């Protein structure tokens, strides 16, 4: 708890002290955090290995997929560590394996969104009507054929995006910032300790 309090306090003080020892220590602490967070990534990977290795040993239903995952992970980890993530070989696999799958899954979401909204969007009250109308204005405003028929729609769509959307998002951002500051203060002061596990507050 003392470690969390001290490190948080120094980073906050660094914001007010532009130079001097506090500023230097604060900058170092932020840089150290990147290193510790890198180790935490390894922790996540270790957990992934644990789960899938267990599936392979127990010959569970999708053990073949688990084996493929671990093999892919091992091959690309070795390739990335030995030759570096900017090497030609790593980049080739990145461009021809990772990116197409990511692009495919991301574009697959178009179907999911359409299917989910078809099932979920029912205009039950005025709030859902407002939501539906603004969504339709933004969607149709970007469709060339509709814009041909209703000439004012693209500019209305742009206005909705830049004025009421910004106003709503700004309110949410300010509210979220207040919440983040309150939670961070609780963490620094030691009132919030659930991240340590065990469920204690």
């Amino acid at each position, binding site marked *: 708890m003392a470690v*969390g309090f001290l490190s948080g306090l*120094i*980073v906050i003080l660094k914001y007010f002290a532009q130079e001097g020892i506090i500023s230097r220590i604060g900058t170092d602490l932020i840089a150290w955090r990147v290193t510790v967070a890198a180790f935490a990534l390894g922790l996540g990977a270790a957990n992934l290995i644990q789960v899938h290795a267990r599936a392979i040993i127990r010959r569970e239903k999708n053990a073949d997929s688990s084996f493929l995952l671990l093999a892919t992970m091992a091959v690309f980890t070795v390739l990335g560590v030995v030759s570096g993530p900017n090497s030609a070989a790593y980049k080739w696999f990145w461009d021809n394996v990772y990116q197409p799958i990511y692009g495919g899954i991301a*574009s697959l979401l178009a179907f999911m969104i359409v299917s989910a909204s078809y099932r979920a969007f029912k205009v039950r009250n005025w709030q859902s009507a407002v939501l539906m109308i603004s969504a339709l204005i933004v969607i149709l405003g970007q469709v060339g054929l509709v814009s041909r028929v209703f000439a004012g729609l693209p500019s209305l769509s742009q206005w909705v995006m830049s004025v009421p959307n910004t*106003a709503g998002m*700004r309110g949410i*951002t300010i509210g979220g910032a207040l919440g983040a500051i309150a939670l961070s203060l609780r963490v620094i002061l030691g009132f919030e300790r659930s991240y340590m596990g065990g469920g204690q507050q």
Partner: protein
Amino acid sequence: MAQSIGTFLSGFFLITVYSYLFKESRLYRYTEHIYVGFAAAHAIVTGWHNVKDQALSPLADGQWLMLVPLCFGCLLYAKFTKRYSYLSRTPLAFMMGVAAGVTITGAAEASFVKQIRATILPLNNLDNIVMVLGTVSTLAFFLFIPLGSKKAANGKRSFMSLVSNLGRATMMVAFGSSFGFVVMARLSYLIARLQFLFSKVFPVISQ
């Protein structure tokens, strides 16, 4: 040659991903696991290079203080042992403390002061009026929910209730337009992928 193999591989993975639209096949599951494996490997590689560049190289240059984050990082793995798992709490508290400090200073500057400053506008046109009223009423909805749901003593709706409703309407417009924007972004992504499939992959296969 390598380019053709790459294009073929890209097309193959793209088609296996789209096969999910028909049925969750074994091929789709394999592709999904390859993706997760690659993403995990990339995280490890990025983490390793971060540790190498920011801690190991300075340590080799004589900056002994870099032993502290390295020890903290190693202590994280104590979580896997029952006896010494409590040791992982120190680096965890350190990370949370620094993250909280960065969040407080960052959120106060970017998400609080700058946003409020951007909302202080002259009320001389419709855009500015909508912007100021929308932002203030959205905040009022968040901060004064109990007041917004109360009715005045004479049974009529209170002023805060009206403001709260205006905030709700502004948020609905924001959510709706964001949703529309996401739908269009995903559709253009899909069109780009299909264009790639038809203009690059199929000609390679038909050769």
